[in-house]
């Protein structure tokens, strides 16, 4: 058993070590007490435990957890006596350690899970891991560091690869682009090209004349001029002739001069002179 820790000494040790080993070079956030729990230089209960464990001066694998628990509880008690404000997690840890201690000491009838031995081992493993990281952190910082122990070239010329786009555009592309812009934005005049049509008047005259000489139903297609005549083979003109002839038929029917008949949708459309 080591001597109970003198609080003042521990404090002094903590503060001194902090100041000596680390500058709290620090962004504002690190001083945020809510996030950054420090008690006399310890960063939380695990840190304090590790420090206490180190004082046992044995390999962390062989520390006495019971002794460690005692030391921690003594520390907390003293802090309470001195009315030091303890962060809640130090007290939580104290309560947990007190429980662990009693579980380790008392004879057990009912085996609880996890066993106190496992909890103790777990604590020990955590301390080992923190200690390991602390140790390698110090070793890392002690290396020959670039900018502290070894130096890069003070004034490197710097390597630059100027990635230059070699823009390509030729005379024709330029002139053509201007043409495109001009064409796109010049006032647009819509010209409807004259095309051959059969006017309603001529269709009316033709249908009317043909009905006059017919005796029965005549299909509307037969009123159209024959394909062999002039431009009438042009399908666009034929479409116009069909439309005009149809309208002419309707007009004649309206006047009562003709009758129209269609048996079904898209069926043949027939006309005949009105029989009076």
């Amino acid at each position, binding site marked *: 058993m080591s001597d109970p820790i003198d609080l003042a000494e521990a404090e002094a040790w903590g503060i001194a070590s902090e100041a000596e080993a680390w500058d709290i070079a620090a962004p504002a956030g690190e001083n945020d007490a809510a996030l950054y729990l420090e008690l006399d230089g310890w960063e939380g209960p695990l840190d304090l435990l590790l420090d206490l464990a180190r004082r046992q001066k044995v390999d962390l694998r062989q520390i006495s957890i019971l002794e460690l628990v005692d030391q921690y509880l003594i520390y907390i008690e003293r802090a309470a006596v001195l009315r030091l404000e303890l962060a809640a997690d130090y007290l939580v840890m104290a309560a947990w350690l007190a429980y662990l201690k009693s579980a380790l000491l008392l004879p057990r009838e009912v085996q609880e899970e996890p066993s106190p031995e496992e909890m103790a081992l777990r604590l020990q493993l955590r301390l080992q891991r923190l200690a390991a990281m602390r140790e390698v952190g110090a070793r890392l910082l002690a290396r020959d560091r670039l900018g502290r122990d070894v*130096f890069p070239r*003070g004034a490197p010329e710097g390597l*630059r690869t100027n990635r230059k*786009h*070699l823009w390509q555009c030729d005379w*024709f592309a330029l*002139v053509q682009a*201007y043409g*495109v812009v001009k064409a796109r934005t010049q006032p647009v005049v819509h010209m409807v090209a004259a095309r051959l049509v059969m006017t309603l008047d001529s269709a009316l005259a033709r249908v009317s004349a043909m009905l006059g000489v017919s005796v029965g139903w005549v299909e509307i297609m037969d009123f159209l001029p024959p394909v062999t005549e002039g431009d009438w083979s042009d399908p666009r003109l034929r479409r116009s002739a069909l439309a005009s002839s149809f309208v002419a038929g309707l007009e004649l029917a309206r006047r009562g001069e003709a009758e129209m008949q269609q048996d079904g949708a898209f069926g043949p459309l027939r006309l005949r002179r009105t029989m009076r």
Partner: protein
Amino acid sequence: MNPPDEITRAVEAALFAAAEPMSPEALSAHLGGAEVREALASLSSHYDGRGIALVERGGRWHFQTAADLAHLLRREHEEPRRLSRAATEALAIIAYHEPVSRAEIEAIRGVQTARGTLDVLMAAGWVRAAGRREVPGRPVIYATTPDFLAHFGLASRRDLPGIDELRAAGLLDPVDDALEALGVVSLGDND
């Protein structure tokens, strides 16, 4: 070559890490009063013919890249790239109407012109900012550069074909027809 002695190593490292050329006095002071001239001479001959040279300029020493390798420091990597259609149009408008503001370019193109488009033309060296137009907002106006004329083989902007010539060449035909015709009729055949 014998291994360098300690002073030579120290001088070598100090000059390497120095942000500025150093006089022998400054070096010596830096190295605790050591005599550095011999070390400088030995280093200078050691680096002779290497990729790095130790040189003296106005009594101060520094390392620099060997003169014949200076081209390694600034490499130009040129990537041929075709000017985008938007950039070509903007360039053509500037060439025909210069000086023009961006708003005027947009008015003529009939579409918005991305900021990057003019940057590209300026990076290519064909267009420059040519002052500001004295109207509200004082917009920057753009004009072509001598490089532009050189690149396009023009003696002056007057060499650009006029509207009538463009029309004669079919370049004022509606876009689709013009594009269609491209494959078939070239400007030269149309003259």
